[in-house]
């Protein structure tokens, strides 16, 4: 306690400024947070090094569960699917959002509040509800096939979510639908903050719309792009609800993803250790990707 008071803050406090009472304010939140978030994560790491069926005594597994992530095709597939889905969940929404921001950055739009509210709407709907709605659209007699038949492309119609080749892209499109509005809203807000003079200067230098996009809009939106990538990557990797509702990983395991595999292994096939290893690997993947994004796109060094 004495040391604690002596070293506090390093510089002198104003008289009467509170001291150790700070710990008391933090204590309730920290206790709950430690008990129900930090401690379970520690346990997850521990569980990932054992073989356990959830009932009998756990046996040490060494690095078996982690080795399986690289050698077992049933575990490699979900990670491959997740990375492929990131194209739909992250890359496409960001690309579409950028194109639109470029198209819209020149104009003043009336009714922007209305458009922003509508475009952002998919973000606030429960993913369970989104899943139910899209199951309907992608069903054999659903909206998508109806439209295809109506325009004479009936030969392309298929049960999208039950098709071995098309189920994964179909689930991906749902993710694109969820993420695009978020990116658009972010980029439109960001584009408003780019100084008009930069555009005028670019035009005086004879830049066309394409040049203008690459030399003014894109650099000006760097921070927003980093945010959009971070949010969509995290959302894309924590993609349990949509998969559970639309395909449950099927057909076969063509749409299984790590988030689904954790649930499936821990609670359906009683491979708790393996499930924990998938969860920890997913955490590491999220960390690595988000740090990479903030380094690459924002050029920030922490």
């Amino acid at each position, binding site marked *: 306690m004495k040391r604690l008071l002596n070293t*506090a*803050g390093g510089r002198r406090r104003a008289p*009467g*400024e509170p001291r150790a009472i*700070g710990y008391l*304010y*933090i204590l*309730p*939140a*920290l206790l*709950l*947070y430690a008990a*129900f978030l*930090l401690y*379970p994560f520690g*346990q997850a790491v521990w*569980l990932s090094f054992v073989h356990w069926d*959830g009932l009998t005594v756990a046996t040490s597994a060494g690095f078996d569960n982690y080795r399986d992530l690289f050698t077992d095709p049933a575990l490699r597939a979900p990670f491959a699917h997740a990375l492929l889905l990131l194209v739909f969940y992250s890359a496409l929404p960001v690309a579409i959002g950028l194109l*639109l921001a470029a198209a819209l950055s020149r*104009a003043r739009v009336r009714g922007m*509040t209305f*458009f*922003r*509210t509508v*475009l*952002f*709407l998919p*973000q*606030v*709907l*429960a*993913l*369970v*509800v*989104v899943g*139910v*709605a899209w199951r*309907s*659209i992608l*069903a054999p*007699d*659903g*909206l998508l*096939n109806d439209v295809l038949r109506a325009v004479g492309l009936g030969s392309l119609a298929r049960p999208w979510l039950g098709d071995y080749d098309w189920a994964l892209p179909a689930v991906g499109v749902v993710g694109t*639908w969820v993420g695009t509005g978020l990116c658009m809203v*972010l980029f439109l807000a960001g584009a408003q903050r780019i100084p008009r003079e930069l555009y005028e200067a670019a035009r005086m230098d004879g830049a066309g719309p394409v040049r203008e996009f690459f030399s003014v809009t894109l650099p000006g939106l760097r921070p927003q792009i980093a*945010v959009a990538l*971070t949010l969509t990557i995290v959302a894309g990797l*924590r993609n349990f609800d949509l998969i*559970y*509702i639309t395909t449950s990983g099927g057909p076969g395991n063509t749409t299984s993803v*790590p988030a689904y595999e*954790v*649930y499936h292994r*821990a*609670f359906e096939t009683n491979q708790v250790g393996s*499930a924990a290893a998938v*969860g*920890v690997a997913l*955490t590491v993947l999220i960390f690595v990707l988000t740090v990479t994004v903030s380094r690459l796109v924002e050029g920030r060094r922490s």
Partner: protein
Amino acid sequence: MTTRLERTVTYGILALFSVIALTPVIGILSTAFGSQNSLHTGFSLPEGGLHWSNFADAWNRGHFGTYLGNSVLVTAAVVAATTVLAVLAAYAFGVMRFPGSTVLFYLFVIGLTLPQEALVVPLYFDLRYAELTDTYWALILPQTAQSLAFGVFWMRTYFRGSARAVIEAARIDGANSWTTLWRVLVPMGRPAISTMVVITFMWTWNEFLMALVMVSGEAHRTVPLGLAFFQGQHSSDAALLAAASVLIALPVVVVYVALQRRFIEGMLGGAVKE
């Protein structure tokens, strides 16, 4: 200088994407008012008047009345607990200086990126051991802990930005740290607090995985879990399923339309500011 063509293109693009964003939503709404007997699993148009009875059926036959009650209780508890605990902790992180505060703060920030999927497995076995699965506690406690990561982070930004002069003035007037917080800073911070409240509300209301793992009986089911089971049993009954979906989405959408700015600010702000 915007030409008429440019303006038309602008509105055309915005309208197109608005239609794409709204199609699944309107499809569900329209199906919810449709006839229950159609074998169609896709969207349908209400024929022969609006079938309001679908909502009554989902409420009674689908037990959504009970599920909504559970969701309200769990969400209210999580939002209340998160708000009080996050305000207290963020206040200390934001305006007080004490050893270890940075490390402790970063412990909370880590929670923003830890995926729930990694936590849910040990949480289930811990809570089962404590005989808390199939209770409201199994939903409230873990979700409060997860919301605290965002809450502490978000509120600390507010307390950091609140004027030091105000705090010092309050202290000179003889207010202790507790009074300063509740009499001065909390009333001033209503916008920041309401953003945290709506975001926590939405996350908790929409939460599915935690409910799926922790609740096995019918008595404690929340609405998203109810919908998933409902889909398993009545997947052919598109109208009932759609009506149930509307019941789930409606509370969040109503709050969202009213407080759109707060939602967007909170969901984007978690990552914008650092």
